[in-house]
């Protein structure tokens, strides 16, 4: 659990007084992914670096599990917080195995245990341990390097992970793949994660909650669905885009709007599965001019109907939004 209270950061650059953070409050419950979203220069990265004390705040405080982070020893604190950055920053002179084992090494783990842990993590991030353990960073592609970057951050099993646009420099295909694998990993690991991004689609995909930054303030804070349902602020609207209804539907599954129905359908009719998202359902409906589509399990047994009217209903009823003044 991370609580940020009235955090501010001011500095002087070229003789001008600058405000990087203007009193932000944020709470990230244990095991959740909180995405800090906003254009560049709005204070997201500064917030992240204040949490692991790479940057000293001008005011306010950060509580980690209820204890003021500034009372910890900075070195000790950082070893308990995984840190992943966009440029990856693997140590070029160390092998992949040595890179992953670096924090355990700082913590004084014996060599054999470090090795075991590195191999275990390589497998977890989807790289063949036998093939990659002895490689050097310069032999890796961008996607492979960032997998190692994530593995390195997880090596000492820290409860908290800070990620600064970790997938921002990757090509779209690797990015999607890494996001998916990361989400699957998070389901098991349940880390408390603060994730900086400027990509709304990434935020909607990864986040349990999103904090939207603008000029050093958090202007909206809530679950992705709540944010999508209420884009009253023109700034948020511009950020989310005018297709927010589609973005919301992408996050919902057919299973959520099923209408029971047990009759069988002709084989030729287009059909959905309960795991399909509603954006896909809508797309098929619009394309074929259907008002309803059958939904079947993989074995073809019908489980219900998805109706256009239900999808409309879903978009109409907005969940409450935590507005931040």
């Amino acid at each position, binding site marked *: 659990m991370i609580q940020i209270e009235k955090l501010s950061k001011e500095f002087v650059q070229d003789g001008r007084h600058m405000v990087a953070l203007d009193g932000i409050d944020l709470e990230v419950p244990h095991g959740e992914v909180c995405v800090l979203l906003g254009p560049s220069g709005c204070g997201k990265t500064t917030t992240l670096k204040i949490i*692991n004390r*790479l940057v000293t705040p001008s005011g306010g405080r950060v509580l980690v599990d209820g204890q003021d982070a500034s009372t910890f020893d900075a*070195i*000790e*604190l*950082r*070893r308990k917080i995984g*840190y992943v*950055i966009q*440029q*990856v*920053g*693997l*140590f*070029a*002179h*160390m*092998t992949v195995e040595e890179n992953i084992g*670096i*924090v355990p090494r*700082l913590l004084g783990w014996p060599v054999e245990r470090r090795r075991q842990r590195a191999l275990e993590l390589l497998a977890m991030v989807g790289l063949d341990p036998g093939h990659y353990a002895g490689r*050097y*960073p*310069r032999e890796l592609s961008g996607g492979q390097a960032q997998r190692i970057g994530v593995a*390195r*951050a997880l090596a000492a099993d820290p409860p908290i992970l*800070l990620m600064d646009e970790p997938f921002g420099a990757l090509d779209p295909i690797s990015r999607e793949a890494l996001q998916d694998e990361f989400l699957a990993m998070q389901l098991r690991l349940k880390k408390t994660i603060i994730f900086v991004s400027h990509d709304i689609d990434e935020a909607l995909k990864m986040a349990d909650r999103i904090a939207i930054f603008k000029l050093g303030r958090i202007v909206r804070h809530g679950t992705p669905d709540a944010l999508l349902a209420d884009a009253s602020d023109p700034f948020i609207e511009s950020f989310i885009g005018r297709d927010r209804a589609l973005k919301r539907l992408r996050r919902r599954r057919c299973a959520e709007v099923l209408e029971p129905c047990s009759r069988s359908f002709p084989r030729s009719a287009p059909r959905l599965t309960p795991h399909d998202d509603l954006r896909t359902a809508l797309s098929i409906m619009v394309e074929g001019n259907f008002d309803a589509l059958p939904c079947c399990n993989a074995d073809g047994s019908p489980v219900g109907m998805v109706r256009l009217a239900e999808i409309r209903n879903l978009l109409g009823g907005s969940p409450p939004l935590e507005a931040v003044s």
Partner: protein
Amino acid sequence: MSARFVRYSIVGAALGILCAAAILSGGAAAILQYKSEIVHLSRQHVLLVLYSGGPAIVVGVLLGIALTRRSLRRICEPAMQLLSILTAIPTLAIIAIAMMALGVGKAPALVALFLHALLPIVRNTVEGLRQLPPAELECARGMGMTPSQTLLLVELPEALPIIAQGIRVALVINVGVAPLAFLVGGGGLGDLIFSGIDLFQPAMMLAGAIPTAALAVALDFLLSRLTRLLVSPGIRNDDATVAQL
């Protein structure tokens, strides 16, 4: 591959010229009459280079590390310029000045050689440490390395190829500068070279010059091998094109 090829060609050509000169001056027999002096003076020569180069490595690397620390970064540029100016003073003049303070013998020669070796080592240490990717340094801090752990585990190993290059250049040049030690009675192969010149004895001069050149080449080879052993394969550059000094 090409850089190495060029280097070996130059070395080969230089040795070829020396050999041609040796033949013109009366052949190997004329030179080998100085065999016992060659052995004795070569030993002195090597010791001059090592006793000046060893401290220069220690002081140079430490100075380079100090100048790249956060607190001293501001005086780094002025300090490097001061060092460059000091190095611009001809070695001969430094030997003369050192002699006035320390008298004749090995001491002034060692001081001059030490100062001569210092600049390339400091400069390469500073450059090597400055060129490190900021992302690696940020990660090192962010994962909880202390400043000294960052230095020992990340900065020095990564800067090692460039630092080693500076050390190699400094020591190899010093082999060629060390004959000047003769002028203040410092010994070394300069004894044969300068005496040979003064006495119009080309064979004697070459008995000093050829071993000097051979020592330089051998030292260069040895140090480049040693560097290859010490530098991690992850950053080893097989066709080193690091800025030559």
